């Protein structure tokens, strides 16, 4: 079945979000040889940037139109409903995680790892743990993206209001918040310690930038983004980032980097969306929009359809990916962690993600038919994926 087409739809968003979801899944399986294919090993940014940018883009595309057509209240209410759905999905994932961790805690024993077993201590006080999880303060490993997304959406209505009216001012406000966050070390508190792994106050920059692009910004910067100078700058920066990434993996290569330079560059802060990461994403995006045009023939090829399908149902497929990475790691530990098994689990996981996306599409089609030709309100699904 061909992917849903609609006039305003940019299938590239679905495609790249789908690919980002696969990469996030692969990166979340620890010690997985296939994760060497993912972009985080070849530069500063990773699939998270792609996911957050496209999420901002689609959110603005869908709810921006809604705000113009049906008013601020309705659009805001729908954005908050979406945030609530993601919250529920996050809690569901948390329960799955708890089940896995409780099982491992009660079955595994090894004197070498008495220290690491301390990670199970929170099972001893479920009262605190559960409440902190519901407050989004306690977030197990690899479960940090959805809370970020929830906060970004919850704070989005006023930002969208401004973006629709004064896009440039909105972007300046976002950059300002990012700068203040860096200046004053703002972040949300986490439990039992520290702060959020993805600082929403910093990552909002990418989300708002995506939204700004969706609301006309992309056209405005297109001549600049497609210029030869930018192209060469982007390419040079990607080569530079690749060279730096090589030094993480090749012993002694790091000694070729001047000391003052590594002191300036490191740490490359993922929590606060380091400028180096943001720039790396921009460089990737500049090359992508140049070489993958909106009407690229490949977008209608059957080869791209699985990724596009996944990208069109991003919330469900994201959650499934987190679950599958738990399950895949579990299978590796219980059965075998050989390279063959790692490849098999990675492939199987992606197949399950695609099949599930296809199933969700089927459900939506069936439900759509039931309602008949009656006009439905603009649907986030029909605008380059869900918001």
């Amino acid at each position, binding site marked *: 079945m061909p992917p849903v087409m609609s006039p305003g739809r940019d299938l590239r968003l679905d495609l790249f979000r789908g690919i980002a979801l696969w990469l996030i899944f692969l990166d*979340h*399986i*620890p*010690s997985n*040889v296939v*994760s*060497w294919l993912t972009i985080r090993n070849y530069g500063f940014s990773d699939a998270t940037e792609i996911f957050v940018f496209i999420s901002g883009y689609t959110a603005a595309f869908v709810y921006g139109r809604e705000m113009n057509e049906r008013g601020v209240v309705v659009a805001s209410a729908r954005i908050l409903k979406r945030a609530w759905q993601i919250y529920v999905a996050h809690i569901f994932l948390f329960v799955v995680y708890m089940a896995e*961790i409780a099982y*491992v805690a009660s*079955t*595994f*024993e*090894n*004197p*070498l*790892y*008495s*220290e*690491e*077993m*301390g*990670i199970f201590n929170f099972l001893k006080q479920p009262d605190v743990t559960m409440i902190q999880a519901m407050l989004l303060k306690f977030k*197990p*490993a*690899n479960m940090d993206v959805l809370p970020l997304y929830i906060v970004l959406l919850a704070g989005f209505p006023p930002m969208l209001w401004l973006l629709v009216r004064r896009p440039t001012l909105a972007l300046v406000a976002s950059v300002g918040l990012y700068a203040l966050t860096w200046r004053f*070390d703002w972040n949300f508190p*986490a*439990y*039992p*310690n*520290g*702060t959020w*792994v993805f600082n929403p106050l910093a990552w909002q920059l990418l989300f708002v930038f995506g939204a700004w692009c969706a609301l006309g910004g992309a056209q405005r910067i297109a001549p600049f983004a497609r210029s030869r100078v930018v192209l060469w700058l982007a390419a040079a920066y990607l080569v530079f980032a690749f060279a730096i990434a090589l030094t*993480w*993996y*090749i*012993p*002694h290569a*790091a*000694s070729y980097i001047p000391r003052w330079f*590594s*002191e300036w560059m*490191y*740490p*490359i802060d*993922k*929590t606060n969306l380091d400028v180096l990461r943001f720039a790396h994403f921009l460089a990737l995006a500049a090359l992508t929009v140049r070489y993958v045009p909106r009407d690229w023939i490949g977008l209608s090829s059957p080869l791209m359809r699985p990724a596009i399908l996944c990208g069109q149902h991003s919330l469900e497929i994201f959650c499934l990916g987190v679950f599958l*990475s*738990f399950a895949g*790691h579990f299978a*590796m*530990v219980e059965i075998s*962690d050989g390279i063959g098994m790692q490849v098999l689990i990675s492939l199987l996981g992606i197949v399950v993600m695609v099949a599930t996306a296809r199933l969700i599409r089927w459900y939506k089609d069936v439900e759509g038919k039931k309602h008949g030709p009656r006009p439905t309100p603009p649907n986030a699904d029909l605008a380059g994926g869900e918001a």
Partner: protein
Amino acid sequence: MRVVIAGLLAALFAVPVSAEESACVAAGDAVQTDVPLRHVAAAIDSKHLTVAVVGSASSSLPGPNGAAKAYPARLGEWLKHRLPAVDVKVLVHTQARESAADMAKSLPQLLVDDKPDLVVWQTGTVDAMLGVDPEAFQSALDSGLEALHAGKADAVLMNMQYSPRTDSMIALGAYLDAMRHGALQHEVPLFDRLALMKNWNELGIFNLHADTRTIDVAEAVHDCISRLLVRLIINGADLARGSNTGAASPGLPPKDNH
């Protein structure tokens, strides 16, 4: 995979390892340094070497023989074996659930009490489990390493264990980066225990998945860690003397520094 690349490179460039060398040491090329250990070199020359090990629970082993079989005590044995003419003392300060900040606070007093020439500082796991702010972790490392530098002791940082069962549950990434960065910035060797143990697991040298109550694998792991630690220490001391020749003494293979 990182380990595989490191292993391949090591295999290409490494000096051949003598046959009696056990497999775990041969697979230890992830552990190497190009940082000279000047205080250690001077201490070896003066025939008195004092090493302090500061760490959390993964620097110890449970059971009645735990203290004797854990890597800090084994380090003492191997150092004595390796440096028979030197009076070697290893003082162990391991404390379960101690974060890097806790340890950094205790270092100035430790420098006064022990007067170590070298401090092996194992940390990271507790902070990762507690989810300490990586920036706070970084500054704890900074203050600890600065204290050691001011106290005229060399330092070796040791990072986390590779624990396949909890790999998906403890997010180590930011803390590993902080330790790598801290080692680089303060010019101290990083004993990359994580990469080392991953390599052992991949090569089948130790089965780290095993669900077991027996302690033999854990003891062998600690023994091998201590042997590689000795190699790193001697290597650093040789670098401080500006030569690699000392590393060719019997028992341990020479370490190349291409």
